[in-house]
């Protein structure tokens, strides 16, 4: 199971767009085999500091290792996946979709 944490600023128009874009990307890429936690830095600044978040928005892939992070508006799907260590043709993603429990 892929674990992600997305750090954003509240419910600003841009943050809502970032969350929606990311959910679309994760759903189409991992077909439900992922967990996404959206964290508002304003409400949880200590969690952001603990995760060493430098700026919003930041997407953090915490599992499986290695940890990867992407900073930006996350609208370029190919770039996001690349920075997370995947390619569209990644064997890892195909394998995840084929297995019942990943």
């Amino acid at each position, binding site marked *: 199971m892929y674990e992600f944490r997305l750090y954003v*600023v*509240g*419910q*600003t*128009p*841009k943050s809502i767009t970032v969350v929606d874009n990311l959910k679309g990307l994760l759903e189409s890429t991992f077909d439900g085999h992922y967990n996404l936690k959206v964290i508002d*830095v*304003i*409400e949880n*600044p*200590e969690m*952001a*500091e603990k995760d060493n*978040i*430098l*700026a*919003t*928005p930041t997407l953090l892939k915490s599992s499986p290792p290695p940890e990867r992070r992407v*900073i*930006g*508006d996350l*609208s*370029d799907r190919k770039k996001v996946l690349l920075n997370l260590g995947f390619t569209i043709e990644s064997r890892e993603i195909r394998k995840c979709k084929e297995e019942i429990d990943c």
Partner: protein
Amino acid sequence: MSKRILIIDDEEAVRRSFILAFEDIGFKVDTAESGEKGLQMKKDSKYDLIFLDLKMPGMNGVETLRQIRKNDKNVPIYIFTAFHKEFMNQLRVAAGEGYDFEIMQKPMSLDIVSITKHILEKSGVC
């Protein structure tokens, strides 16, 4: 054409750090020591990115954000603040009012240059 950045911060050391960090790699950096001055500079020039300190005497960061957004809803604005609960109340109000902004942690990280390049890459110039 070089990307143009505006830094609004009352601390001279911070403004100088930005100039050193970014002019070395080809960005054009303008600085302002107050929200009022920053607002005037924003009216006079076009910027690709604005860094804004939260706590400043006179017009603070959130009020400066409000004034900038009156005339420009699109320029990316990063507000610098420590990630502590005590500093979040003002930001909560601004977010609740529907203003678009992002947050960058203070003190400034050494990664700020690469982060900024990544942010501006969306505009296709970096």
